[in-house]
């Protein structure tokens, strides 16, 4: 079946690509672009480990046909840092030990970033809401909440 030509912005760089219509955005990111930071957990939109930001909004990339990336701006965990400088959310997760095995972390950080972009000073409840779609089986979430709070603190003043 026909390949579809798509053009999109991936982590700030314009890409032109050809994809089969039955491939998901997650498969394209991991297999074609080797951006393996984004993980596949459940593959059906329950766990959030494949979370990326598309058009400014978090989506489960396992549920998005890759062709839909056409004309969109996509941000993955690889696009957060500037060279050696980690994004404040990443920095906070390192600082506060907001991870153990690390599998949920990329998705968790993308959700946290989207949350803080929309709401720079979230309450603990709002943080819980914001990452409700991201499952972590290790941490018990406490360290993750602390990391996001610390990131919010660090990002004050538009950093």
């Amino acid at each position, binding site marked *: *079946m*026909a390949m*579809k030509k798509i053009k999109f912005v991936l982590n700030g760089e314009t890409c032109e690509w050809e994809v*089969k*219509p*039955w*491939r*998901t955005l997650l*498969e394209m990111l991991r297999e074609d672009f080797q951006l393996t930071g984004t993980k*596949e957990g459940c*593959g*059906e*939109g*329950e766990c*959030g480990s494949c*979370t990326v930001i598309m058009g400014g*909004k*978090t*989506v*489960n990339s*396992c*549920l*998005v*046909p890759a*062709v*839909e990336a056409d004309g969109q701006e996509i941000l993955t965990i690889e696009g957060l840092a500037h060279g050696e400088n980690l994004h404040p959310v990443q920095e906070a997760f390192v600082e506060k030990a907001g991870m153990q095995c690390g599998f949920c972390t990329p998705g968790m950080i993308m*959700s946290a970033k*989207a949350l803080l972009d929309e709401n720079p000073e979230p309450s603990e409840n709002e943080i819980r*809401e*914001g990452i*409700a*779609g*991201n*499952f972590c089986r290790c941490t018990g979430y406490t360290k993750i909440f602390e990391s996001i709070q610390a990131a919010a603190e660090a990002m004050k003043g538009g950093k």
Partner: protein
Amino acid sequence: MVTFYRRLPKMGYVKPGSLEEALELLEKNPNGRYRVYAGGTDVIPKLKGRVIQSPEILVDLKGVSDLDHIDFDEQKGLYIGALATVRSVETSPVIKERYPILSQAAGSIASIQVRNRGTITGNICNAVPSADSAPALLCLDARVLLYSKNGGERTVDITDFFKGPGLTVLQPNEILREINISASPENSRSVYIKLSPRSRMDLAVVGVGVLLTKTNGTFRNVRIGLGAVAPTPIRALKAEAMLEGSEVNDDLIINAARTASEESRPIDDHRASAEYRKMMVEVLVKRAIHQCL
């Protein structure tokens, strides 16, 4: 043995630029050759799991312009387009103010990631008995506008829309274009209560929506919508009739809640027993009515 596939079945993809174009495809659609989707949050997992027949071609509605509208007009009421996401309905200021029950129900669905993609129309077209938006739409007397080729158009009351688990009156050549809700009665109050073991990322074990107006100490415009306790989302009509026009008192509320519970026809499944669901309908209807007073 159940095989779990992680990949989508091989299929084509088209993105029609207009509703007419999409309807044209559906008109000649032998054996489900085309499958329409909006957000894909229900269709994609079902296709991956081989739960539904794989179409030859997936039809992405998102190319149709002017279908993601949420418009409010004092006379005509609210219009929600087929492509309006659950998240946009949840966060819409006019819905929050005028139809809080709908914003509440939308906000209780899955996760932000899913709500950013999934649509309210998709939620009702998928027609699971536990669809969170359904009790809210039942309470709001919503109507759905179904379109087919050559200007074919019909309006169906939400009470007649659901036919069974996963089944609706939507024909294979039709697309649900928009949902219409009248301006809700002055001073009406409403609430949606969702019972589930986890507060997020879970399906309703029981979903209860109540909308009512209290005028001079009597109940008016009472609506009780129930989810996950019958083959389709239902209204508790007998309980509504008991309350309508009656004076507000605790015994009446207790009786009405019991009647609503008797009207429900839940099943036993891995989420809860029918017995438990029935008991919870009573508890939650009572609670919801009290919250609306």
